């Protein structure tokens, strides 16, 4: 595996399988009374969150703690960043503190890559701008493989604001890498023009697609974008692309309904759809901890210069 995890493009299909298999073992650890193993004892993991995020930060924090690593949380508010410190100076401070891994969430695409030029530790991208969010994609792949038994040949649709979604990008790259068929669905203004280059199909008709799907992945409507007039109104969006109860009823019986959270109930997904048994939104959260444990273990646990295992 690569030294860092910045993008799904850093991983081969074999790497993805290894990460998912390792996460399987960590799921078992999560079911024990003592949910903690000493694998990364004495290592330091820094959660460097320059953009608001609760679930991803908590998930990484719990993952690192369950591996017995020491965790430092560093976020924008109340830190030297709010006093105007540059990313580089912050990075050099983290470097001087001897961080073995730095988990970064930042509103600027590419900042995790920039960080790798200044620090020696392993950098894990926890979401950068509109670029990528690979750990979310991996936990989604894990959930699909667990529920449906395979990834190859799966038919998945990713519905919504694909343009601004780092989740959609990482997940599409991951699914295509694993041999699944991906269709991106949404208003034309929110489908990026280069989507065909990702290896995905594009459709503007959600109703024609639903009966043929194994996975319906609903993206959050970023209401703040509505002001920017990418679509006329939230209500119109909900009517044309929202996963309503009537639409969800046209999905095949075994199909999964997924959402990366946080949800706008009643906009991109109806409240009772989110609570259906086919919806695996809570499992996605549990699996996220196991995936992040696997990534920290594989990256930090393999950083020696000794013989390979």
């Amino acid at each position, binding site marked *: 595996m690569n030294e860092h995890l910045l993008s799904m493009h850093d991983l081969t299909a074999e790497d993805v399988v290894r990460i998912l298999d390792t996460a399987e073992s960590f799921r*078992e650890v999560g079911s024990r009374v003592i949910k903690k193993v000493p694998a990364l004892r004495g290592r330091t993991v820094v959660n460097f969150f320059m953009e608001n995020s609760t679930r991803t930060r908590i998930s990484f924090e719990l993952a690192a703690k369950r591996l017995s690593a020491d965790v430092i949380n560093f976020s924008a508010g109340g830190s030297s960043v709010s006093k105007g410190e540059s990313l580089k100076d912050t990075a050099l401070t983290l470097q001087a503190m001897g961080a073995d891994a730095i988990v970064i969430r930042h509103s600027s695409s590419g900042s995790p890559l920039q960080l790798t030029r200044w620090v020696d530790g392993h950098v894990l991208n926890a979401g950068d701008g509109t670029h990528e969010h690979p750990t979310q994609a991996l936990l989604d792949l894990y959930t699909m493989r667990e529920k449906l038994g395979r990834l190859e040949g799966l038919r998945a649709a990713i519905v919504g604001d694909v343009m601004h979604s780092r989740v959609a990008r990482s997940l599409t790259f991951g699914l295509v890498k694993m041999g699944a068929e991906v269709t991106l669905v949404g208003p034309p203004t929110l489908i990026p023009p280069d989507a065909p280059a990702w290896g995905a199909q594009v459709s503007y008709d959600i109703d024609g697609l639903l009966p043929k799907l194994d996975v319906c992945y609903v993206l959050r409507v970023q209401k703040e974008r509505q002001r920017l007039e990418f679509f006329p109104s939230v209500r119109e969006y909900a009517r044309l692309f929202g996963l309503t109860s009537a639409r969800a009823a046209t999905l095949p019986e075994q199909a999964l309904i997924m959402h990366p959270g946080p949800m706008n109930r009643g906009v991109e997904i109806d409240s009772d759809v989110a609570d259906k048994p086919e919806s695996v939104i809570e499992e996605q959260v549990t699996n996220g901890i196991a995936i992040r444990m696997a990534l920290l273990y594989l990256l930090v*646990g393999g950083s020696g210069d000794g013989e390979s295992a």
Partner: protein
Amino acid sequence: MTATVMTADDVRRALTRIAHEILERDKGAADVVLVGIADRGDDLARRLAIEIARIEGVEIPVGVLDITFYRDDIGLRAEAPEVHETRIGFDVSGKVVVLVDDVLYTGRTIRSAMDALMDLGRPRKIQLAVLVDRGHRELPIRADFVGKNVPTGRADDVRVQIEELDGVDAVTVTAGVAA
């Protein structure tokens, strides 16, 4: 040069003897559970359970333990060690846990296994059964039940083959060139 130090028959006889020794030492099979260390240790543990069932007429629980997360060399290797599955479907607290492994060498695996077991509960006793003891301990650990003591050099390669994984039961030693 490769020498066979145990044939399939030797392995079978050794496991039968160890099964008897466990029953003798622990005065029957009550509260005894077997925990094999992945991989190969778990297959040996299942076979010991079959032997004990044959001798004593008692089914004893068998679990699989992966010790990867408890290793003392994580981060020293270029690749993170491969992770196997842990599946222990019973509570180890208050039990006599017989750890089962194929080869006892430095003792570091057993140290890790004991730490891992302690996180799962509080066994009344932990004992160790191995098919081969090849010497060269780096920790103060010894086995309670040994299939065969095989004197080796550090550079030698001791290979245990198990029918379930390798299609044949055998223990071989390939002489290594001392570094």
